Structure formats: structure tokens, C-alpha cells
């Protein structure tokens, strides 16, 4: 029920993001979703890709620091209040969201929210109990 995200450390200077996407593009790696957290000095680029191993390998070869993180992908009806219901359920069970980002399915009526929790298993249990659809990694990578 978990999804593997790759995270990349990038210095806050021009051209670094372009360099990451160029390396991935040349390796034939497709980016499904992304988010960039930035500070004045550095950024952390988080990606869901179709081929994690390859992405990690080519980026490491080019000297980037890369790590894999387990995140949770949840399907949300693409309508007002959809996300709010999820967050309320998590809040009731005292589950903290470290960060999150979202994208909309290409030809569906749903949005997909990627969550990073500090207690991943507990979060999945809460989401399932409350009837939300937690997506399998394989489905996301191939989307």
C-alpha cells in the first residue's frame, strides 16, 4: 500500500533542477508527480517516477545525493471538500502529515494526494478504515 518516492538534494543555484530533469529525461525516466521544498540555501526535490531504480542509479552516477522514502498515495474525489475529509480523519487519529502534494489523474475524475507521514502504517490503517482508496505503488508508477 506504500509508494516509493525518490528525494534529491539540490543546491539553490541556477541550473540544478534543469540538470536533474535532463539526466532523467536522457535515461528515459518518466516523472509522474513532483514537489520541490526549498530554503534559501538548498532544495529537496521529491519525485514519483516510473522507474525508481534507474532514476536513483543515473542521478547517483552524476553525483547527486538521492534517497528513497515511503509515502502514501490516496485517491480523492475531485470536488470541493474532498481533501478536507481525509485530513479530518487523520487529525482525529492524531496522525501528523510531514508534507504532501497532489496531482490530478490524466483521464479520471479523481485527484491523487501524496502524503509523507511519520507513522506510515498507522496512517494507512486510518485511511482504509475511513473508506479512502489508498493506491498501490505499481498503479501509480504506471499511470
Amino acid at each position: 500500500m506504500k509508494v516509493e518516492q525518490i528525494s534529491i538534494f539540490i543546491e539553490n543555484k541556477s541550473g540544478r533542477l534543469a540538470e536533474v530533469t535532463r539526466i532523467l529525461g536522457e535515461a528515459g525516466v518518466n516523472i509522474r508527480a513532483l514537489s520541490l521544498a526549498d530554503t534559501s540555501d538548498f532544495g529537496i526535490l521529491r519525485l514519483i517516477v516510473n522507474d525508481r531504480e534507474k532514476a536513483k542509479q543515473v542521478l547517483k552516477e552524476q553525483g547527486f545525493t538521492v534517497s528513497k522514502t515511503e509515502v502514501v498515495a490516496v485517491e480523492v474525489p475531485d470536488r470541493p471538500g474532498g481533501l478536507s475529509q481525509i485530513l479530518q480523519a487523520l487529525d482525529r487519529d492524531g496522525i501528523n502529515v510531514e508534507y504532501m502534494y497532489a496531482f490530478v489523474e490524466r483521464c479520471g475524475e479523481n485527484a491523487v494526494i501524496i502524503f509523507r507521514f511519520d507513522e506510515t502504517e498507522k496512517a494507512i490503517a486510518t485511511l482504509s478504515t475511513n473508506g479512502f482508496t489508498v493506491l498501490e505503488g505499481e498503479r501509480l508508477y504506471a499511470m
Partner: protein
Amino acid sequence: MMYNEEFETLPRQALEALQLKRLQATVARVYACVPFYRQAFDRAGVSPDSVKSLADLRRLPFTLKQDMRDSYPYGLFAAPMDDIVRIHASSGTTGKPTVVGYTRKDIETWSELMARSFAAAGVHKGDIIHNSYGYGLFTGGLGAHYGAERLGASVIPMSGGNTKKQIMIMKDFGSTVLTCTPSYSLFMAEAAREEGIDFRSLKLHVGIFGAEPWSEAMRAEIEEKLNICAIDIYGLSEIMGPGVAIECREAKKGLHIWEDHFIPEIIDPETGAALPEGERGELVITTITKEGIPLIRYRTRDITSLTFEPCACGRTHARLSRMTGRSDDMLIIRGVNVFPSQIESILMGIEGVEPHYLLIVDRKENLDTLEVQVEVDERLFSDEVKILQALSHQIEKEIKDLLGVTCKVRLVEPRTIARSEGKAKRVIDNRLLS
């Protein structure tokens, strides 16, 4: 094991008698043969006859690096060119290099002291010494080379650079001893890892590292990553080259300086006054057997302390503590004295921090600023911003707590800090430019 047990264990009294005899001969020689010394002694109101005891050494004037520059190239030589068989020069970072000449006997002495140094580090006949010190004008390569041959070990004259080839040869030739700068050893281990070679699986058992200041924390890192015993060696071309002093493998607690050839003193770098045993200050060395270019009270600018306490290894020669830097690479940041090696120790005390760091000193609106760049590798990296920021703050706080200086830590991508194949560049001081 000792290479020359008789001299290495000479009782203090006999050692000091030998030192005095050799000092008197050296002083007489430079007074007679080197106009610079004759003038300097005359100005100070001393003559060779003034030296009646070792304590009288303090009456003699210092020799500065600037004096060597002013005498460029051969002005301080005490032997005629006919007797000089080798010339080396320091890697002078500013202006002209300092030039040194060796007679055949000087080369013999150097070879012996370097052989003693290898033996003290636990190197034997039968060892294969992978010598990555640069060959050329720099004394490191040839100094270690001659000592290795004198000891009877096999020496591979690698010199610096071409890291891939170094690793291949080290692996294929079964090198058992590595000689290079401490930062280059870590650089090679890192490069080897990228080639899929684990340094720990090589046959190396000892590394002899010098030519730049390093820390105990860096020693621990090298010993762990290379699976070797890391030994600190000291030398400088003005005095001889590598092999002036070395740690013994038995104790690894201070570097024995070969006192039958050199007389060490520790002085206050500000006042020039002699400091008592154990106090930290600038190392001053007088050579007492050199013929080519004997130096009286040469100010090394290296900061250390001296102890005459007996050592577990049985050698009677005094020990220098680990160099904490040079009196001239000391940074003064907002009035606080900071040695790069102190910051290195702090960084390496933090889990996951690599010894690749760079200090950038600047002056903004008349205020000194210190930026510490630290590389983020996989052990440090987190996908969460707050964890990386906490790391920066932790380093800033520890530097503030221990050194009293406020700094800004900047996390940078791996391998963005220039790797040096010789001496690592640790400091960029932009204040010098303005």
C-alpha cells in the same frame, strides 16, 4: 622496531652532550661560511663562542622564512656548489619558492631519518610502499623514497595524481604501506568506492600521512575507511623534508623529533619568548648536522607543544603534539582565533559529516563573516527540510559553543567542494582581496 636503536634510545644526558657538540660545530660553520649569519650574530652581539651550553641557544637570533626568500636562491647555503648534490624548493604559495641544497651527507642523513620514521610506523623490509607524495621540487616524494630504499622495503614511486591508476596499482601490486597527505587518502578511498573497490579489502596495513594539518577525528575516519593504522609524520623542506618527526606505532601519542639532528624549541609567536614544556606555541628548529643549508632557530610557523616525558616505545627523543595549524593560517574572525583544524574536529564529531568542508571568510559592512560549507551525502540527507535545517543549526551551535564564533552553515551537494590531490584547500579568505 627501531632502525637505529643506539641513537633512538640514547640516554638524555648523552643525547644533550651530543646536541651541544653538534650545535657548536654548526654555529661555527654558519658564522664562517654564511654572510647572513655572520651579520645576524654580530647584530645580536653573539659569536660562536657564546654557545657554551644548550641554554645559550636562546641567545641566537631567529631565522625566518622571509630570510630564505631574501637569500634566494642560494644565499644561505653553507657548502660550496661542488658539494651540493640535490636541490629542492618549497611549493611557495606566494612569490618565489624557498630553495634548499643537500650535500651527499645530508642525503644520507635524510635517508636514515626517513628510514627511522618508517620503522617507527611499523614498516619493515618486505613491505611494499605506495608513495603518493609528489616527486619533484617538493621534498615529499624523494624524501620518502630514499628512506624506503634505505630501510630495504620495496617502493612504488607513484607520485601524486591519476587517482584511478593509483587505485589499480595499489590493488594489483599489493601495496602494504601508503604515504600521502591525509586528505588524499580519503579522496582515494572515495574514488575507489565509486569504482566498486573497497579500500578495506586491500593489503594496506599502515598509512603515513603528513604535509598538512589534520585532526584525531580525521585519523579515526581514515583508520575506519581504509582499515589501516594512520600515522602522523612531520617535516618541512627548509629543515630537511619529511621525516623530521613521526609518531611511533606503539604509542601514537606525539611525534618523536630526531633530536640527534634537530633541536626543537617552542616559543610564543607574538613575543618570541621561550615557552615551558607542554605549552602550545610556535615550533622553532635548529639543525645540528646539516651541511648544505644549516638553519639556526628556524621559525616553522607550525603550532604545537613539546614533551620530554619518556615514551612507551623506549625512544628518548622528545615528542611534538599534533600540529593544530600554522601560526600564519590561523584565522582571526571578529577577534576570535580560529584554526581550520578545530572546525574540522567539530564537523567530524557529527554523525555522517564527511571531512570535505570549506571555510569561506568574508567581510560585510566591516563585519567578518564565516561560512562553513558541508557536503550532504546519503547518510546526512533527509527528504524533510526540518531535519536538514536542524543539522545546519546543530553545527552552527557547536562551533559557536566551542570556538565562540558565529558562523553560517551552508549544505552543499556532494563533490562540489574542490578535491585536492595534494594539500586540501580548506579556507577561502575573501578579506585578503579587499
